[in-house]
């Protein structure tokens, strides 16, 4: 009994971080209709960022999170102007292939430089033990930080002018342009934000689990599943989608071999894609 509850709680903790990763993906998708396939590489970038900042500078791991966030934003804006800018308005498949190719280049370079060695960021926080089950401190901290970042994002999007501008451009780019909103700047800002979210989620994942250059693919796939569950363009939905996925995993693993969770995830993915294209958590009445 406690085992199942422990599993579910832990699933929710980790799932929220996956939700954070997906938020970056869905934001970009919703604002500029670009499916960012460099998402996985950016998650890995965040992981390495945390690794180097914390080990080389000797800083405690969590202190490296804000720099990763800022650096991720900068990288995102840069990436926008290099590869994505030209793709706005073109058929979505072109932007898909464009970001896909950048991803290949990044992962290829990464593998050449770092090989596929496992990196680990040693973080030890006291956990909470409950009826023999321990919730590791890192999982709890990651979930707390996720909630904080998600909250900050919400405040930004709904309580500030730049946030409003982003939502306007997402809703109707031409109308926003006609209203004097500098859409190009807004798009690059939004893209930067999306990448920053991907990087910071990578950094949080790195505090919990070891990683390699290739880890990004698995988390990118998870992000797609979560994004589809939450409905694209819907950051709140993404967070809930992540929690839901974590919940699903937590409920399933006590009863069947852990290796079956991937199968279930992908079945859910394809079913939701076909049957619920708007996602399961579409609170705003968007198509």
């Amino acid at each position, binding site marked *: 009994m*406690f*085992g199942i509850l*422990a*599993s579910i709680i*832990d*699933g929710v903790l*980790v799932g929220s971080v996956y939700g954070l990763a997906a938020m970056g993906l869905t934001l970009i998708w919703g604002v500029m209709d670009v499916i960012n396939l460099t998402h996985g590489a950016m998650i890995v970038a965040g992981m390495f960022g945390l690794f180097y900042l914390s080990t080389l500078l000797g800083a405690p791991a969590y202190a490296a999170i804000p720099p990763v966030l800022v650096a991720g934003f900068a990288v995102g804006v840069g990436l926008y102007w290099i590869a994505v800018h030209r793709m706005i308005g073109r058929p979505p498949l072109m932007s898909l292939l464009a970001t896909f190719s950048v991803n290949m280049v990044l992962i290829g370079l990464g*593998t050449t430089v770092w*090989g*596929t*060695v*496992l990196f*680990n960021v040693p973080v*030890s926080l006291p*956990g909470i*033990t409950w009826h*023999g*089950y*321990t919730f*590791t401190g*890192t*999982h709890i901290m990651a979930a707390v930080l996720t909630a904080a970042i998600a909250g900050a994002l919400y405040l930004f999007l709904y309580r500030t002018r730049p946030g409003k501008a982003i939502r306007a451009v997402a809703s109707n780019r031409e109308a926003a342009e006609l209203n004097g909103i500098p859409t190009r700047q807004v798009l690059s800002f939004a893209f930067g934000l999306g990448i920053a979210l991907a990087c910071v989620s990578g950094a949080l994942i790195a505090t*919990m*689990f*070891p*990683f390699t250059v290739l*880890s990004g693919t*698995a988390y990118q796939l998870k992000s797609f599943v979560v994004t589809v569950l939450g409905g694209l363009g819907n950051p709140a939905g993404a967070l809930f989608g992540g929690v839901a996925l974590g919940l699903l*995993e*937590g409920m399933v*693993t*006590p009863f069947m*071999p*852990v*290796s079956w969770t*991937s199968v279930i995830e992908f079945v859910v993915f394809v079913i939701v894609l076909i049957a619920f294209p708007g996602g399961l958590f579409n609170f705003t009445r968007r198509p």
Partner: protein
Amino acid sequence: MNKSWLIAAAVLCLAATPVLAADEDTLTIGFTVSQTGALNLDSIAQLHGFEMWRDDVNAAGGINAGNKRYKVRFVSYDDQSQPGRVQQLYTRLITDDKAQFLFSPYSSGLVATATVISEQYGKLMMSIGGAEGKTYQLGNKFLFQTYTSADHYLSGAIELVKSKNAAAKVALVYSDDPFSKAVAIAAREQAKQAGLQIVLDESYPPAQTDFSAIINKIVSSGADTLLGGGHYPDGATLARQLYDQKANLKWATLLVAPDSPQFASLGPAAQGISVPSQWAPQVTYKPDFGPTPAEFAKRFEAKYNIAPGYHAAGGYSGGLLFQHAIERAGSIEPEKVAAELNKMSVTTLWGATKFSTDPKSHGLQLAHQMVLTQWQMKNGQLVKEVVWPLAAATAPAVYPYR
């Protein structure tokens, strides 16, 4: 490969026969190394073993075959720990690099795929680092296994646990790869026969990094003994998370990972973990030829600044066994060398070696024995001690392990 290059090369070969004759005094051994990928730590240790053997042999003038002396030359590529690459690269080693003999890649899965190629082209391959027994049941003629078969990996740990607690509850949690699965299949049987109860029996994907769900299941099952693991990355991660999640165990034996000297860097998470080992520097075998275990360990450490684990010793011994067979055969013809290997029953720094000649399991290692080593705290430092079998033990086992 460009076709015009081939024609040019063909012409050059025809014109360069005298050059070829000089090459006959070199023996080319081909193999792949997992320079990158999940298996790289242990594969590179194995490579160091190979290289040390090659340097020793060449320093002594080469291999003595009949009235010719052959200097050993390696051709190797990085297989990136991937089976697909292994096949392409071994094909290249045979057809392009004209390797006369082969060493296997490291790890059972890769050995199995390389064997397909070596058997398709009829080349002799010394299998080092491949413990899974099934590979030898597929009908080979030229494959020889130096490692003790996977079936025996956990038998020592099971006997030890039984001797400490006959009512132990065992969780069998292992990586879903050919080697670990083979170990688990045998361990299941052996545990049952020892009267131990298996309360959890599950595999995880080799690339798994999040073990929290499985560890929760271990706690739920009430297990006090953990047997399993896989190779270095997952083994090290599992050990670390076991420590963080405070799984309530009295004994933990993990495969492969704890044998690497690097495992000590896990600090408190490494303490008490035991590992079935093909070899340890403290063993006291008296070799029929080649260096003693102590000599080997000392020279290896001097050369590579790190104590040798069993992967390095296996690499060195593989070369040594090859050399011995070639020298006894007096020739480098595969059939003659294979005949010598089939007859062989020797002891080296590695221990006893005898290959099965039963066509249904040709090449399987019959004589080699394993030991169980445990990381123990000695004067504030983590060291590996042999704890089983008792006759070979250098220190008593620490039970409960932490």
